[in-house]
Every structure is written in C-alpha cells, then in structure tokens.
C-alpha cells in the first residue's frame, strides 16, 4: 500500500547505521562473490575440458589392448599387448564407415640433436593420425603412407620439443637422434596445449609406427588403435563391429571377457564433463554455504535492530502505522541489504575470477545465468531471513513497544 514512503523510511534507517549496514551486507557480498567466482572457475574448467576432448578428434573410437573387466588378471589399458598390426588392418578392411585408422605405440626416451638433448614422448602412428586428431602443422608436412610402409627414419615434432632442442632455429630437415638412430624432421605441429590430465601435448615426437616398432621401441604389439568413423550415426554400429571382429580374431569364446577395451569419444567426453560438472556443483555448494551464513547474519542484525528499535516501532504504530507497514519496512531493509550486497558481490565475484584468470592462469567462465541466479538467490535470502524479524516487529503491541526501555 504505502510502499513509496515506507521504502524511504527503510533506506533512511539503513543510512543511519552505515557501518552496521555495510558489515551486514558484507556477508552477502562475500557469499555471492564466492558463488560467482567458484561457479566461474568450475564452468571455465568444464569448458576447457570440453575443448580438449573435442581436440582429440571427432567420431573417434579408441581400442586399447588389455581389459578393465573384473575377471582374471587385469592388466590395465594398453598393458597386455593383445592388439596386433593385423587387427588394425582388419578393421581398416572390414568395418564399414571407417575413414581413418592409426596404429599407436608409445614410449618415452631421450632425443638429441647437436649438443642439445631432451627427454620426450615418442608416438608411433599411421599417416591418418593427423587427420583423426585434427592436428594441423605449423610448418613442414606430415610423414606419408609410403614412409609408414617403408618404416622410414622420419618424424614430426611438437612445439615444446622443437623449442627445447632447436630454440629459434627451423627444425625442418634437421636430424634428430632417437636412441642413436637419426630421424629427419619433416614437420612441426601446431601447439595443442595441456591435455585434460595436465600433460603437455606439444612435448612429443611422432613417427611412423613401423619405424617406432622396428627402430626405437621394439615389440610387435600395439598399445592402442585409433579409428575414425565418417558418419556419427554409424559410430555405435562400427563400435559393435570392431568388438565382434576383434573377439573373432582373438579367438575369444562367447562368455569370456574381451582382451581389449573399446571407448568412443562421446563416452570419454561424458566422463570428463561429468567430473567437471560435479566439481562446479561442489564449488558452488561450498560458496552457497557462505551465502546462507550471510543470510543468517542479516537475520541476526535485523533481530537486533527490531529489539533496539522497539520504541521506534511503537511510535510508528501510535501515529498510524499498520502492522503491514512495519513488516514492509523491515523486509525492505533486509532485502535492500541482501540485494545491494548481491550486486556488489557480483562485481567482486567477476573481479575475483578475472584476477584468478590473469594471475593463476585458471580459465574462468562467468555465465549470465549464474549472475542472475546469484542475484535472485541473494534477494531471496533477504526475504527468507528478513521475514521472521520483520514479522516479529509487526506483531509488537504498540503499548508494550512504547513502554520498552
């Protein structure tokens, strides 16, 4: 009813107690700021994970040797050496929809050129690998299928390896000694940055898997096979066909566990984003607790304020204030504290996430929805925690209130 004047009255009361108002709002400022910053960090991490998963390539099926099932001896992914080169060739030949296959072997070793040396990861791959992972070249060219067939001594290197060994020199055409075998560098890859596990993806040497198996790593089995499917609709079917093909090739009787593990891009992406979603929720919930604590602070101060101003309430009632006027006044005070605190908190939260991004190198992503939710929630906190004190004030008996000392 008389909202306008009551609003002025409430604001005046807040101004009369500036320090107290600021301190009370501080609880909400910190709460909302924490929610905005924490959710920003969580969302930033999620966005980064999603981007990295996408950078693994589209419509990719990964086949690891070894099994994660629970029977018998478990070797972990890539551990048992059950995948053969022939398996990859069978997939390339027999599974419809396959547009790229890359046999993969992995090792770590010391590489050297001139008087520089560097400990790095060696990946053996087929020529399809750079298309499967959508990994463009900064300079030079990939090795060819011919290089793979002939197990030529060629390789491409990542940006980190290039910088560590060659500094500012152009590595193209240079000789890189890997386990005393000289390899010619044909290309330098574009940097991809850190992986979801925090591994520097650019600290790498990639060569034909044939060369890697024959000249560097040894052995006859693959760690895994990367398969790319042209049409995402066919992904599921292709995955099933790969499983039955490999079971048949490995002579696994029905009812026995696979000796390999098949995962596709979506599954990996879902697992990774689920993790970061849980992290976002967790961070938000922890920050939300501080928002609730801020709300309790408001309630506490409003209760003190109602007690302290009992006489004032009595006077207001004596000169004609309805209970609803008093209720509105104290509710407006509480909501003003919480929503102004919320607005300042939003600014602080955005500022905090910008600072974290800039100095701690954490990616943060502030969404409009998280700002809107934080603001509405802070206003709701004001209503929720302001209502009890306001109702207490409105229910006062004017005679008692006037006599209150």
């Amino acid at each position, binding site marked *: 009813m*008389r909202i306008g*004047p009551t609003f002025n009255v409430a604001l005046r009361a807040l101004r009369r107690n500036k320090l107290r108002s600021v301190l009370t709002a501080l609880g909400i400022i910190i709460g909302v700021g924490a929610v905005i910053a924490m959710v920003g960090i969580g969302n930033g991490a999620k966005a980064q994970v999603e981007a990295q998963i996408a950078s693994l390539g589209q419509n990719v099926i990964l086949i690891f040797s070894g099994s994660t099932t629970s029977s018998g001896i478990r070797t972990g992914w890539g551990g048992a050496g059950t995948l053969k080169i022939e398996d990859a060739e069978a997939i390339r030949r027999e599974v419809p929809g396959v547009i790229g296959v890359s046999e993969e072997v992995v090792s770590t070793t010391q590489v050297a050129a001139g008087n520089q040396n560097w400990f790095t990861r060696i990946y053996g791959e087929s020529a399809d690998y750079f298309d499967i992972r959508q990994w463009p070249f900064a300079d030079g060219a990939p090795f060819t299928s011919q290089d793979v067939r002939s197990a030529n001594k060629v390789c491409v290197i990542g940006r980190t390896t290039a910088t560590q060994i060659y500094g500012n020199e152009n590595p193209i055409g240079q000789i890189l000694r890997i386990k005393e075998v000289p390899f010619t560098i044909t290309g330098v890859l574009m940097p991809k940055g850190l992986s979801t596990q925090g591994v520097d993806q650019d600290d790498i040497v990639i060569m034909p898997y044939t060369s890697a198996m024959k000249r560097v790593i040894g052995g006859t089995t693959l760690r895994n096979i990367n398969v790319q499917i042209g049409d995402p609709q066919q992904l599921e079917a292709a995955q099933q066909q790969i499983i039955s093909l490999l079971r048949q090739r490995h002579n696994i009787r029905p009812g026995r566990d696979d000796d390999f593990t098949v995962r596709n891009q979506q599954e990996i992406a879902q697992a990774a984003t689920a993790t970061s979603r849980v992290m976002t929720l967790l961070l938000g919930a922890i920050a939300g607790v501080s928002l609730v604590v801020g709300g309790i602070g408001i309630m506490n101060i409003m209760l003190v304020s109602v007690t302290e101003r009992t006489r004032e309430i*009595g*006077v*207001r009632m*004596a*000169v*004609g204030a*309805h209970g609803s006027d008093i209720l509105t006044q104290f509710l407006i005070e509480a909501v003003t504290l919480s929503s102004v605190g919320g607005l300042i908190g939003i600014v602080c939260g955005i500022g905090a996430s910008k600072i974290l991004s800039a100095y701690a190198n954490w990616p943060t992503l502030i969404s409009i929805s998280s700002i809107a939710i934080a603001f509405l929630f802070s206003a709701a906190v004001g209503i929720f925690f302001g209502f009890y004190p306001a109702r207490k004030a409105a229910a006062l008996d004017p005679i008692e209130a006037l006599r209150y000392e």
Partner: protein
Amino acid sequence: MDNGALVRLIDLHKVYRTGEMEVPAVRGVSLEIKRGEFVALMGASGSGKSTLMNILGCLDRPTTGHYVLDGADVSGLDRDRLADIRNRKIGFVFQNFNLLPRTSARENVELPLVYSAQQLTNAELRERADRVLASVGLAGREDHHPSQLSGGQQQRVAIARALINEPEVLLADEPTGNLDSRTSVEIMAIFQQLNERGITVIMVTHEPDIAAYAKRNVMMRDGVILDDHVVSRRLDARAQLQNGGGRPSLPAVRGPGAPDGESRSNQTLT
C-alpha cells in the same frame, strides 16, 4: 452531532488476564468529553488512568463497554482500523517524547503523514512539517536531531508531530513528567493556546499544579472515576511566563486563535 460530545465512554471495563488471575484495571467508567475541552485525567499509579488513556488513544480496546469517538463506535475495531483512527483523529504526546533518534525534527514531525491515506509529495511534506514546527516555536531547528535539542524543545517537536495531521483530540501522557517547572509551564502554555484554538486536549498527570492548567479535572481511583469537576481557579501559563521572568515569551504560539471548534478543521496552524 451527538450533542457535541467528541469522546463518549459508556460503562467501560478493561480486565487484564495474567495466567489464571483476572486483574481489573478499569471498572465501569462512563465519561463524556466535548469538543474544545481541556481535561486533566488524574490519579495515583494503579488507578487505571493509563489504561483509560490507552483506550482513549485507540492503542487498546476495552473488554466491555463502548467508546464512541467523533460519533463512531471504535471499541470493536481491529488493529489496522484503530491505527487509521490514531493516524487521522488522535495526536499523541508522551512523557519521554518518543522522538526517533538520529532523525531530524522535520522528519520526526512528518512521521504521521507517511502513514496517512493522503499522498503528499516530499516538498508538501516538508512544507507542512516546517509550518507546524514554526507554530510551536521551532522555526530554524528543523534539521536538528533530538540529541541537539533541550527537553522542552523535544517535547515541542513531539507536539508538532501530534498536530501535523490536524487531529480531533490531543492526548498527552504525563507531558511534563520529564521537564523542569519552567519548561513545564511553557508546554502548558502551548496546550492552552492550542485549546483556545479549538483543539480538544486530554492530559494524564499526577501533579495537581499541572492539572490546574486544564479546564476540567477527572480524578480516578481503583478503576473508577472518583471525582469530575470544572477547574475553578484555572492557571494561565502565558501570563505566568510574562510575569515570571525576563525571558522572552514563546515566540510562535500566538496568532489569531479561534475560540470555537467549528472553524478549526480547515484552518492551518500558523
């Protein structure tokens, strides 16, 4: 209307319940107060005068009996309706002034208008408050906070607040209880002048020499009216102030008073 009675109490009872006990505070009071009267309600503590005052001020409701204010029975109204009656028809002056602390005299005086049905702009509020403050001699003190004012000045702010909605009746509960004798006389001078202009004043006091400024004294004891008489030797506060000391008399409580109540309703207090 209603043979000129502004206030009519008909066999009024008020009983307080404390647990099982029933404590009667007012036990059958009938009283009639006409427009333009200046009544002092007297009695020792526990006589029921404060309870009666609360009922007269529509802060409390009688247990039984009727209270007719300005022709309307208000004894059965709910909280909000009573609040509206207080806002429109009653001005309160309290013993301890009851001003809002850290709030300017002007804002204190504006307070009843905030809760009034009429919607005024801020400028109108301010203009009205300043005019009433000037009428009680506080021109130039509009921005002072209560802590910057003397007791007498604070009580004048309270009187201005009581007058701002042009009430039918001014209710004063021990208005001089916290003031020295000279300031008390000053406040009585204001009351007498307001009364000369037609405002009905009902004042609770236990001091006979304060009651002597009223036109009529009602004495209570044990919840009933013991005595009700017209004051024969009435004191004139203004005359006392002029004779009493070299101090200047109240600056602003002058102006053409209207002796009858009729012209008051549309007259402003200047």
